[in-house]
């Protein structure tokens, strides 16, 4: 059996998975997670390499049986040349030829993609998007980005930076133009609403509002707790019926719906898959998102486009970097 190592380099954690390629879906044999060292790329690279060897050793796999290495991390990056440029969540990483380093170490080809593209590939090949020619994957986690499979292949765009859907809409306010009246409810880019940090920030604003009006907020009993609010604590409160929490998720899902409408109009895809927070909290987000999508898009494209949570679920994070390698082999 041949094996592929998948490496997901995140701002806080790095995860390495070892996958066997015998069957139709890559089998995750084992994995290691560790804190991404804060001391820059050299020490991180070293711990990545050490942990790869550890994984291989622990499972009694010889490096000869390693077929390839797939890497995903946040952008910006140069996928074609395997270079991590300077992602905001990895300070000190500047033009790092990560693929070359790993190729030299393991003598197998290494491939790099950003997170959204890696997830799009994984869902397309093994998840909810199997058999589709045109699909969009939306990360709805730390950030809000899109990965595209278009005309049956990964679409990276000019200079490989496509998918910055989180920046969309930001043009429409704040530049003092005629069509940006105050109080339009459009006070930020999509990322400000459709991401973990966006939801938490929105939660703080709304909680403060409620507290000032003397109303109960179960996820934030008093203003001293504002900084501890996370998307997760708001979600739990929303599931328990807390009004303020439900409002946060409704606003977020309406913005998500606008993003879905924009995507269906412009790209007319068969499928949009939404990861992370949407996959975990589908019940909180689905209804209002789909309603808004329907209201704001042309009926034909909208009715032809399915919207689904990740088909690989919790496995997605492990399989995505592996798929980066599989797609390029």
């Amino acid at each position, binding site marked *: 059996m041949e094996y592929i190592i998948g490496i997901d380099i995140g701002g806080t954690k790095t995860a390495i998975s070892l996958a066997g390629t015998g069957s139709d879906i890559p089998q995750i044999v084992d994995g290691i997670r560790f804190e991404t060292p804060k001391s820059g790329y050299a020490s991180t690279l070293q711990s990545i390499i050490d942990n790869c060897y550890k994984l291989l050793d622990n499972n009694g796999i010889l490096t000869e049986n390693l077929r390839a290495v797939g890497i995903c991390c946040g952008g910006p990056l140069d996928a074609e040349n395997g270079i991590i440029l300077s992602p905001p969540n990895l300070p000190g990483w500047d033009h790092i030829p990560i693929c070359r380093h790993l190729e030299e170490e393991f003598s197998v080809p290494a491939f790099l993609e950003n997170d959204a593209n890696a997830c799009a590939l994984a869902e397309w090949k093994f998840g909810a998007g199997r058999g589709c020619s045109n699909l969009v994957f939306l990360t709805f986690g730390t950030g809000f980005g899109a990965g595209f499979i*278009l005309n049956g292949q990964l*679409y990276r765009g*000019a200079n490989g930076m496509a998918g910055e859907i989180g920046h*969309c809409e930001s043009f*429409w306010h704040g530049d003092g133009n005629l069509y940006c009246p105050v109080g339009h409810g459009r006070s930020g880019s999509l990322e400000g609403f459709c991401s973990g940090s966006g939801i938490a920030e929105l939660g703080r604003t709304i909680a403060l509002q409620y507290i000032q009006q003397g109303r109960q907020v179960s996820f934030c009993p008093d203003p001293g707790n504002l900084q501890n609010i996370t998307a997760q604590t708001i979600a739990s409160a929303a599931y328990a019926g807390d009004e303020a929490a439900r409002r946060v998720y409704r606003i977020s899902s309406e913005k998500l719906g606008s993003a879905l409408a924009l995507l269906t*109009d412009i790209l007319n895809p068969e499928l949009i898959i939404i990861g992370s927070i949407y996959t975990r909290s589908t019940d909180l987000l689905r209804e209002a998102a789909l309603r808004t999508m329907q209201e*704001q*898009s042309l009926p034909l*494209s909208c009715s032809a486009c399915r919207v689904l949570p990740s088909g690989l679920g919790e496995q997605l994070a492990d399989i995505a970097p592996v798929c980066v390698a599989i797609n390029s082999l």
Partner: protein
Amino acid sequence: MKTITNINNKETMHIGNYQRVLRIISGGPISRVGLSRLTGLTQPAIGNLTGQMLADGIIEEAGKLQEDTGAGRRPVLLSLTPSWGYIGCISIDRDEICAGICDLGGSIVLSPCYFPYPDDVEQTLDLLCDTLKDMIRTHLPANSRIIGVGVIAPGPLNSSTGMMINPPSFDRWNGLNLLDEMRKRLPWPVFTEHNSTAIARAELRLVSSEKYRNFAIYFINAGIGLGLVLNGEIYTGIDGIGCEIGHTSIDVNGRLCSCGNRGCLDLYASTAAVVHDARRVDGSLDSWRKIVDRAIDSCDRFCDELLKLQASYLAGSMINLDNLLTLDAIIIAGQATYRGEYLCDKIRRRISRSLAGSGRVPDIRLSSISGHTSLSGAGAVVLSQFFYNELFLSCGLTI
């Protein structure tokens, strides 16, 4: 009729090579040696294929290479014979309908006919088809080969079935099967496509594919259409329905649109929208061209402001699109190209101001299509069927 599926492998390969070599020759004069180098086929194989094409009359020898290659002989150049076949081109749009003819090289050979717009859909279709047949009979040499007819219309339009589905502000055409209706009236193969996609096809034939692998067409008339070329290929999404930008909202609390949405781009940045806004203030400003002329020639502040506003709406939409797709270029086609550098320049300035930080700005430019844009688009639909698909097999070539 031959189809790719009912012929054997060897034949498929031969046909594939014939089509590929012809496609290269259609891009401009080239020698047999050049063809061999580009395709990897042997010189005898190229000799056979081009011999067959010469006998078919679809290519011709077009003089010799200027430069002496040093070997003493200057290689003969081969080029496409545009008059080998003709294509009927029909465009149906909200503000005009027209018909014309182009040749195999994609040049419009008969100046397009425009019509006053009958209210009745059946009458409109009859008029278009009768005129086309008439043009072919009276203007082309007898027995000219008609490869097919391309018919384009605003979206959403399902290219494979030919069904027009709820095109906004185009109610009378809703639910019409354009393909069936045209086939009833015309004796040639008919192909339909969403007009902006067709124009992207025409543009794709003209632009350098290395320079512009990913680009968008903004087809700006009474409505605004979007055509996309991604990874060097036409992109249409499901069922060839194509892409839409005119009904994406730029202001959720804005003007109410006939599509049910609010603040659609069409209502602010189409030529019709600008004329509508202008006439509310000055009744004499009843055409897009008048507004542009007055802004440029008379330095009219009001007209200039209208165009500036239009440019900012378009720029906003383009920035959103570029955030999504990071494009090499965004190309403007349609009525808005009339003295279009003026508008283009305003858009460019807005976009470079907003994207300045990102270090990458797409080229904003006017379409390279000379002549009638819509009819070139309609022609390109059939040309791509001929050079890339099976239409090629039923046109009387000895393959």
